[in-house]
């Protein structure tokens, strides 16, 4: 065997330069954001309470936890930690999906507990959750780059779309004990597989995304649009591939059944958080929250972002409606579904799930001026969110 052919074989194992660039970008982003969060914690001392939504006051008076892993545990993180440690018991647990806590339990038992015997159980689980989030962001950005390259057709646009994902104002949730990173690590590859007509892979990933977050089920729509488009175009995918659409539905039903057997009611749990689809009370709640913007400066900023970021995501999806109708549909649905549950709370975070919006933004960013100005605005808002989150304020 010649040495030259051996080198060729090895070279094939290396990722292409574009993937290497994205990997470096991801590594830099992880390091920068973790350092910034630590620096923001040390340098600033934000005094509570947070009045942005009236109910945030009582939850933001205590000093937030610090320490490895625990600095990234705020708000919903505690629900996931409790689920990972103790499983589904409380009524409110039903509002949270199981994939992330199940994975957290596995990592905690297999890795962090043996490695950190001195740490409290909460910290062991927190470090496990954070590790999952950090690791999951890598396949998410790889898939984002591949998806953007497939849809937009250029490496430059793909890198821009990936960068926009990483600087989105609420993207820091991907490095916390939150489901965002794991969800995107499943949802974006699912979209990529749909675009590439790998129906079963898309369906399986969508099924996993469905048991990670509620919006995962909407991926069925994206896969369905591509399947139908192929059918209309005469490419005639095999009928049996429609079974791929059943996988997320199966996952969804299995989760509902599990909750029922655990004597938990998911709809009641959502209602406990003020979320019920197309309810008139929801309209009243939204108008009340909009009123809060006028009366409270903190509310003006936070609720303003809860309104502005989903609108921006919808605009981004609209821009790619022709190039990628299935993606645009999913992105719009991922924003609209939480909106119709009758509250503006967390919409800024949910906008992150509308990943096709980044393709739309990336096309706008072909103008260097737009690119720089959006980057400027986005990173400033990202910094604002990180500071508030680190200090236990409501961030999304």
């Amino acid at each position: 065997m010649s040495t030259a052919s051996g080198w060729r074989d090895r070279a094939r194992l290396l990722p292409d330069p574009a993937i290497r660039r994205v990997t470096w970008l991801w590594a830099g982003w992880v390091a920068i954001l973790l350092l910034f969060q630590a620096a923001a914690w040390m340098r600033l001392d934000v005094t509570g309470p947070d009045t942005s939504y009236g109910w945030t006051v009582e939850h933001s008076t205590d000093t937030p936890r610090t320490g490895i892993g625990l600095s990234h545990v705020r708000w919903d993180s505690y629900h996931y930690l409790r689920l990972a440690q103790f499983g589904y018991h409380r009524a409110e647990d039903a509002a949270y999906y199981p994939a992330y806590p199940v994975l957290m339990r596995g990592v905690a038992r297999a890795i962090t507990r043996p490695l950190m015997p001195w740490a409290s159980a909460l910290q062991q689980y927190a470090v496990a959750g954070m590790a999952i989030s950090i690791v999951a962001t890598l396949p998410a950005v790889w898939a984002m780059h591949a998806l953007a390259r497939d849809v937009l057709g250029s490496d430059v646009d793909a890198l821009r779309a990936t960068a926009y994902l990483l600087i989105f104002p609420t993207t820091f949730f991907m490095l916390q004990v939150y489901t965002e990173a794991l969800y995107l690590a499943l949802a974006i590859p699912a979209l990529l597989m749909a675009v590439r007509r790998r129906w079963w892979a898309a369906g399986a990933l969508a099924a996993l995304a469905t048991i990670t977050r509620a919006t995962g089920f909407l991926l069925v729509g994206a896969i369905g649009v591509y399947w139908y488009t192929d059918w209309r175009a005469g490419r005639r995918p095999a009928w049996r591939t429609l079974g791929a659409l059943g996988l997320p539905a199966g996952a969804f039903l299995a989760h509902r059944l599990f909750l029922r057997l655990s004597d938990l009611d998911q709809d009641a749990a959502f209602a406990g958080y003020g979320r019920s689809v197309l309810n008139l009370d929801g309209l009243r709640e939204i108008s009340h929250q909009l009123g809060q913007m006028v009366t409270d400066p903190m509310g003006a900023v936070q609720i303003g972002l809860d309104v502005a970021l989903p609108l921006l995501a919808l605009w981004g999806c609209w821009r790619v409606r022709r190039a990628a109708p299935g993606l645009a549909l999913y992105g719009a649905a991922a924003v609209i579904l939480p909106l119709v549950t009758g509250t503006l709370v967390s919409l800024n975070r949910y906008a992150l799930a509308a990943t096709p919006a980044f393709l739309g933004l990336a096309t706008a960013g072909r103008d260097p001026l737009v690119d720089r100005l959006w980057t400027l605005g986005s990173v400033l808002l990202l910094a604002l969110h990180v500071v508030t989150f680190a200090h236990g304020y409501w961030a999304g």
Partner: protein
Amino acid sequence: MTAPEPTAHPANAAAPDRPRWRAVVLLWLGWYLALIVFQQVVWARFTLDRPDFAYPWTGDMTAGYADGPETGPWFYARWDSPRYVAIAREGYRPASGITDDRAAFYPVYPLLMRAVHSVALAPLGLDDWAPGGRAHASYALAGMIVSAGMSLAAALAMYALAWDRLGPQDAWRATVYLLIFPSALYLAQVYTEATYLAFSLGMLAALYRRRWAIALPLIVVATLTRAVGLFLVLPFAAVWLRDWWNGVRPPRWALLGVIAPPLVWLAWNRWIASLGVDPVAVYASFNREVLSLRGLFDLVGDVLYIFREPNAVHVALDLVMALGGIALCLVALKREPGLALYGLAALALPLSSGQLTSISRYVLAAVPVFLVLARAGERPVFDRVWTIVSLLWFALYGVLYVHGFWLA
């Protein structure tokens, strides 16, 4: 006589063949609006617990709350800003004897503030404007107007300079990097940074185009804007001597650009002394004594303080800024010796007084920093990563400034 400056930038097919001045103006406008709005948003969203222990001495100076947006332009005026307002209103009358601290501040910026106030604001009847009970707001507004205009001029000058030195794509990037630099928020506040950069970068752009008649007055004005302007003689002399060495024979009168700044600087100090103020004592009152043993102890003390106080992460950031600035100037030494020496001098002067304090602001004057970064930014990943680093740092400094914490 002029000579084309050798440029090493590679031809770029995608690069514009003519300067995109309009894009730079729009970039500046977007930046300015984003910054002004960001400051309001930060104020509205949260409050910081006081005092600030960034440096051992900042605790005593940050016990009270800072002016809010209800005070109008005073919201954008912190720390040194009231001194500029006082100078613009009253001049340099020594109010507190030989150590009157106004004497440490150079006259061009407050003179421009006074001019804008007299020409544009006083006729509108804004003399008695006191939003939120803060008097003399019209002078603070004049300071903001001057800074806004000068920051635009600085951005355009940076673009022109980098276009000549590096090429079209890098010129755009250098301008962006200047505007998003961690301490660039000072360009929009009641501070002298924008004015100094407008004159110094304008001087350098004219110098490298051999517009001696433009560069000469600008170097004098820059020297009267900030002390560091004195070091602009280094690139000026380097360009003149290189031309001479290459047989281009620049005009002899252009050598005034090397002689005038020290003379102007001396004249300024003599005038200050004639008012009964001792310039050396004034600087000492700010704990700035060049090459003193006490300064060295202060420096060591500040570095050790990093390990004693969480807020002192600020000192660590200042240290990183100083070392990073020096390293980038050294990188530029071979390619741009005149500019690199100027940048190094701009950093060495404050550091030689044993103070890391304010170094993040002083780095703005070190032009090679932006040129080296712009070249490195030809790699897309570096460009994105540096942009994120710089903007997050910029935002952190913005938060500190808004709430009246120590920044620089």
